[in-house]
């Protein structure tokens, strides 16, 4: 596998009506990786994806396998080597089999070979029994499976996925996501996957690029981006529900310590010192009825708090805590909540590891 990115964009700008929809210095996808472009709606994710596949007028440099993509002919060659699955399946007015064959025929595959590969692709996605059906009678999930089969039938070097799960109901989505993940892993397909769903990103991504207002705010592994948001905007989007405003100072005992504006403090990790927000994910906060004996737990922060509210969040319970003048939240299972017999007004200890206190240098006013 070469070090040259299979797709690379430099100085890519997509402008519309005089304003930049996408403006990025560099974006690169390595062969074999699943590269998720994550961000809120309207961030320019889909526009970026279309630009990378030569479907969007852009300025800047686009390289495919290290070679520049300049002319319409280059763009068509790029499109024939890759495949796109949009949020909607966009099936042609023909049969399911005809749709998958069309994708191959347009790429210059012969009739018999196209039929053989189309049937194999439908089988791979578990929709071979729909081969003779027309698009009108298909469910949303079936149509999207056909659309993905059409994309995979051509053995694309890069598969572009533009929110392929967004229009599906949760059970359909889970099934398709599992199948797609398996197929991508088995075939080691290079994927550029646009989504606004952080859990989907966490599940599939090798690397994540976070995009907002057409600009890249962070790029890294999924764990890096999700656990160490680079800016308050990324952290805010990724659902860090608790923000503490203050600054980080050196602590001879603890390495670093975040001191909140009201004087309360948390041991934290990292070399940064200066004004900052501290982000604590609710799932990183453990609860205990009594203060653990010194040295009995690895958590460096043991905070006396009071339960303010208990709210359901999916199958979990979100416990809102009052820690001095600062808010804090813990996400616990129903079983844990029952075991602790949590009630509003009762005192509990919140346990937070120093590495779970994410420090975001303060670049903007407190949200």
């Amino acid at each position: 596998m070469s070090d040259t990115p299979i797709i690379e964009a430099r100085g890519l700008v997509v402008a519309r009506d005089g304003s930049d929809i996408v403006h990025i210095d560099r974006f690169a996808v390595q062969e074999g990786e699943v590269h998720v472009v994550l961000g809120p709606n309207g961030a320019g994710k889909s526009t970026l994806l279309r630009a990378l596949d030569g479907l969007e007028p852009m300025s800047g440099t686009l390289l495919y396998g290290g070679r520049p993509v300049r002319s319409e002919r280059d763009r068509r060659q790029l499109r024939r080597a890759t495949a796109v699955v949009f949020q909607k399946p966009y099936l042609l007015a023909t049969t399911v089999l005809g749709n998958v064959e069309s994708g191959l025929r347009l790429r210059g595959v012969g009739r018999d070979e196209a039929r053989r590969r189309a049937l194999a692709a439908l089988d791979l996605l578990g929709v071979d029994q729909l081969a003779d059906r027309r698009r009108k009678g298909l469910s949303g999930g079936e149509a999207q499976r056909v659309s993905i089969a059409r994309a995979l039938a051509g053995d694309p070097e890069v598969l572009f996925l533009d929110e392929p799960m967004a229009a599906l109901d949760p059970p359909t989505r889970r099934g398709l996501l599992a199948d797609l993940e398996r197929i991508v892993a088995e075939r080691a397909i290079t994927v550029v996957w646009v989504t606004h769903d952080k859990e989907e990103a966490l599940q599939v991504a090798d690397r994540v690029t976070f995009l907002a207002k057409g600009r890249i705010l962070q790029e890294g592994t999924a764990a890096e981006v999700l656990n160490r948001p680079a800016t308050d905007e990324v952290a805010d989007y990724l659902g860090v529900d608790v923000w503490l405003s203050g600054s980080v100072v050196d602590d001879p005992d603890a390495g670093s310590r975040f001191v909140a504006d009201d004087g309360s403090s948390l041991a934290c990790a990292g070399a940064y010192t200066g004004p900052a927000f501290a982000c604590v994910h609710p799932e990183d906060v453990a609860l205990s009825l009594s203060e653990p004996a010194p040295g009995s737990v690895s958590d460096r922060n043991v905070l006396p708090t009071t339960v303010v509210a208990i709210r359901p969040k999916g199958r979990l319970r979100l416990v809102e805590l009052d820690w001095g003048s600062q808010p804090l939240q813990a996400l616990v299972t129903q079983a844990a909540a029952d075991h602790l017999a949590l009630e509003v007004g009762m005192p509990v200890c919140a346990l937070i590891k120093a590495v779970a206190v994410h420090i975001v240098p303060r670049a903007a006013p407190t949200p």
Partner: protein
Amino acid sequence: MHLILKGIVEAFHLLLSGDPFIYSIAWRSLQVSVPSILIALAIGVPVASLIAQRRFRGRRLVIALINTGMAWPPVVVGLLVALFLWRSGALGFLDWIYTLKGMIVAQVLIATPLVTGLTLAALQQLDPSFRLQILAMGATRRRLFFLLLREIRVPILAAAMAGFGRVIAEVGAATIVGGNIAGQTQVLTTAIVQYTNAGDFAGAIALGVILLLLAFATNFIVTTIQQRSVVATWA
């Protein structure tokens, strides 16, 4: 009332007896209308496709002109065509005035804006991402054109039928450009006018019935196809 009843009875007698003169007029109407609509489709569909896909200066003006053209008074179109085809006119050397060819030119000018406008509207209703999906599959511009046409085949058929209905029922341009010459350029509409003026209500009603039947058949075909097909893009 007696006059009308008598006319209707005689009209059906003419129709059922297969009167060759009456049917020759109907046949001539089709000889003008069918080629006109085919030429209008050949011009209008590619033009609509170009306008739908390209962004150029004056695009809105062109669309406004097409929409205006959909409601051009046929008699004015007939006048313009006659001025060009008149022996001393710019295209007088063609010698098409008072011929079926001249009438076809006029009918093409009447039908083309209608076909173009309706095709353009259908193309503009397609989700723009549908076009991107076809391009993403590696299609050339030519293949894209034909695949998009397949998606809007029902609206195109409806446009063709609407155009056909307009030209076959049109009388002003047919009279001015064709001259209503019996046995040569006389079509259903112009003949109805002449027969009515001459008090031959039976002939006029017989021709009127044929015209109505043609209009009904056209609309019946369109309605049937529209009910059987739905242009869907997974909206």
